[in-house]
């Protein structure tokens, strides 16, 4: 299985990550792209600032890839990239691309991957609003303190 992960300041190009998982035996590529929205619960968002614990985040992305490989052995490729620094409205903050022979495992692995990433990846999001800024955390993790499942 191909596995490539990256934490980067550069804008994310989804097509680069789709190409990354290409494989002659893969009939399906499922991709999730997270994009900065212009509002959060009615408040205008100007931009986001992501901060990472970078070496741990890179390792966490690799573990997500290995966990996907263990759960869906047919998967042929996993590519995950997360941006750090300032991300404007409409820009991608995360791309998860999965290739597999058939669509069911590609789609399921993609959904699993983004869910695990949101719980485990040591990255923090500062939402800069029209009047102030807040640390915006992901929805509560079901209490697990340990390793990624």
């Amino acid at each position, binding site marked *: 299985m191909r596995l490539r992960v990256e934490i980067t300041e550069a804008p994310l190009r989804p097509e680069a990550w789709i190409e990354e998982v290409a494989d002659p035996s893969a009939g399906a590529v499922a991709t999730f792209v*997270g994009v900065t929205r212009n509002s959060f619960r009615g408040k205008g968002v100007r931009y986001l600032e*992501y*901060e*990472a*614990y970078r*070496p*741990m*985040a890179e*390792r966490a992305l690799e573990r997500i890839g290995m966990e996907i490989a263990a759960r869906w052995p047919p998967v042929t490729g996993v590519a995950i990239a*997360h941006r750090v620094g300032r991300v404007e409205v409409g820009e991608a*903050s*995360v791309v998860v691309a999965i290739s597999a022979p058939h669509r069911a495992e590609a789609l399921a692995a993609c959904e699993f991957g*983004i869910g695990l*990433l*949101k*719980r*485990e*990846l*040591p*990255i*923090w*999001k*500062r939402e800069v609003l029209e009047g102030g800024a807040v*640390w*915006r*955390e*992901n929805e*509560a*993790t079901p209490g697990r*303190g*340990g*390793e*990624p499942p």
Partner: protein
Amino acid sequence: MTGGTFEVLLFGPAREAAGGDRVSVEVDGPATAGGVVAALERAHPALAPLLPRARVAVNRCYVEAGTPVESGDEIAIIPPVGGG
């Protein structure tokens, strides 16, 4: 395995609350991840409100409170994350 001085990495809201990306902390009791958190709570009151919901990473892996820590370990406080 008991006591010692540990450096702890801080990120996101913890970094902001402490006004810096790392703090030193003296641990008197058992040198575990939980012992480091308890010592931080006493020595850095600005961090106290964040600690109950934070996880601890040792050498870039999440650990439980009972996990031993040693001098030279890379210890980090991981407030609730916001990636994605």
